């Protein structure tokens, strides 16, 4: 079970959620091994090298090789965790993940950092608005977009108990706190963070916090919004969606990703196949490439702010 703790503002870096969770795992499981591709000082995984030198491998700037090495380690019983910036563990290594990993039934746990607008200074070449779309096409892949530090730690720790391809994306930097320390989640289950009766707002990742803010400001304007944190995009919690849309006037999906192939698409598939007849607005990146800028600027530029959600919800009233 989870509890909310949004008052806690001393958020830590998301990358440290990953680092500390992997270090914790390594204390109890000598099969856990971390692989980096020359970004150890960017991901903080250099700390794992320090704490667990014999369970850390830097493969250099060779992401495809990293995935292959991870698959080999998995074949003989290790539990590999790999990191790179989101584009380099998605687009760049898709066939290796697909064949050496998924199709061969190997286990690879993936931390894709700085997805979407959180790319900031690294700009267009490093922007990924399509990583979830790609991974969704891999049979049985588990895909998460972490909403906060507590959830990220839970995700990493629980990946270690599973077999297969497990992908989680998140900013490296601190993001707003949502959950109380010790909260528990379930893969394949969405979390209702706020009840409401007019609109169902389904968000994932860093935007969950913005979704809650949007819901609060809409509440003041007389619109009741229910907010779900759909941190697990695959498998998607269809039952929850079909249950919670009852009597809602509209559904909004809200993601730091392309509206093609991500959370919004996944929800659209559920709604269409169940002939729901309730309008869905996908708020996400509208078929565009990335660019350089501050994260705040890019969030605005790509229409991913809470005010976009608010404006859309208000427009429904007219």
């Amino acid at each position, binding site marked *: 079970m989870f509890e909310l703790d949004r008052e806690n503002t001393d958020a830590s870096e998301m990358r440290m959620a990953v680092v500390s969770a992997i270090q914790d795992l390594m204390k109890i499981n000598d099969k856990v091994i971390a692989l980096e591709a*020359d*970004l150890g*000082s960017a991901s903080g995984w250099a700390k794992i090298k320090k704490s667990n030198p014999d369970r850390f491998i830097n493969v250099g*700037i060779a992401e495809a090789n990293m995935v292959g090495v991870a698959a080999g380690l998995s074949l003989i019983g290790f539990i590999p965790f790999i990191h790179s910036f989101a584009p380099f563990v998605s687009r760049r290594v898709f066939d290796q993940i697909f064949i050496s990993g998924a199709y061969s039934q190997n286990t690879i746990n993936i931390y894709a950092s700085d997805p979407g607008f959180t790319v900031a200074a690294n*700009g*267009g*070449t490093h922007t990924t608005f399509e990583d979830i779309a790609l991974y969704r096409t891999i049979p049985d892949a588990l895909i998460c977009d972490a909403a906060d530090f507590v959830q990220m730690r839970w995700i990493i720790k629980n990946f270690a108990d599973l077999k297969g391809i497990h992908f989680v994306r998140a900013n490296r930097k601190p993001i707003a706190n949502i959950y109380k320390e010790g909260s528990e989640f379930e893969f394949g289950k969405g979390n209702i963070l706020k009840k409401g009766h007019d609109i169902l707002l389904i968000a994932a990742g860093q935007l969950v916090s913005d979704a809650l803010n949007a819901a609060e400001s809409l509440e003041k304007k007389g619109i009741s919004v229910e907010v779900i944190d759909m941190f697990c995009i695959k498998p998607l919690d269809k039952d929850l969606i079909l249950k919670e849309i009852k009597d809602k006037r509209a559904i909004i999906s809200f993601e730091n990703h392309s509206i093609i192939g991500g959370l919004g698409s996944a929800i659209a598939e559920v709604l269409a196949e169940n002939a729901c007849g309730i309008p869905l607005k996908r708020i996400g990146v509208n078929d565009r490439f990335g660019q*350089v*800028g501050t994260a705040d*600027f890019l969030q605005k530029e790509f229409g991913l702010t809470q005010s976009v959600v608010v404006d859309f919800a208000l427009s429904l009233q007219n």
Partner: protein
Amino acid sequence: MADIAGLARNNSADAVMMTNGNEEDEIIMNEKEIKKLKLLSAKIRLDVLKCIKKCGYGHLGGSLSIVELLSVLYGKQLRYDAKNPQWKERDFVILSKGHAGPALYSALANVGFFGKDWLLTLNENGTKLPSHLDRVKTPGVDMTAGSLGQGASIAAGIAAGFKLKKNAQFVYLIAGDGELNEGQCWEAFQFIAHNKLNNCIAFIDENKKQLDGWTKDVINPYDIEKKMQAFGFFTKKVKADDESAIDEAIEKCKSVKDSAVCIILDSIKGQGIKYFEDMMDNHSVKFNTAENIKAADDAIEELSALITRLE
């Protein structure tokens, strides 16, 4: 205390004699030319520093290590028209280690592709100069780069295309030594060597560091020159802060008729500014400490003085 490390190196007449043969006229002309290139190097280096300092952070180490190379290319070897960046008959530059954008931007600004005021907009919201190269945004940038390992193949395609069209143009590829970890580089080298694409001059910036530290500690490259030779390349290895040696190596490569060619730049990450050369983690430098800011200011002062002297 910052110090212009390259300054004292190789500006003696001896060095010129050694590297440029012994015909008297040629030496005099070359000395003038070399001075011109040294001036351009100093200007590029100064602008790299100003550009990254203004931004507050940036890939300083790997930008500084290719300053002299860019000076030789844009000051002498390349065919280009700054007023017509898309000129079809130009030589192409593929800076595959696209994070060294500030170096290329500074070179381009110094030879007139755009105003130097642009350099102070690095990474700003809506900028034309992103940290990683973008051919769609920046005049004079021939290819987008930033996802390491892709440039060698692009250069190969351009070189192969020039051959098909029977064009006498060159393509200059600049790859990082860390970047060579990427297997795609070696796929491209196979192709370039097999097809004897001697119109592709491949530079490897061997500054011996990558992001996580020394290349030999991350993934040992062993002897890069021998590797390239084994792949079928004619090779030259030169000091990366020596304009005349770089120039001479390019001339030599241009005379090679029957094989692929590669120049290995024996460089220093942070090259030309002692403080940044000595800094261990100099891949991406942040200008958020008094010490770093002072070092940059000192170097800016010294480089400005050097420029005045050379002008």
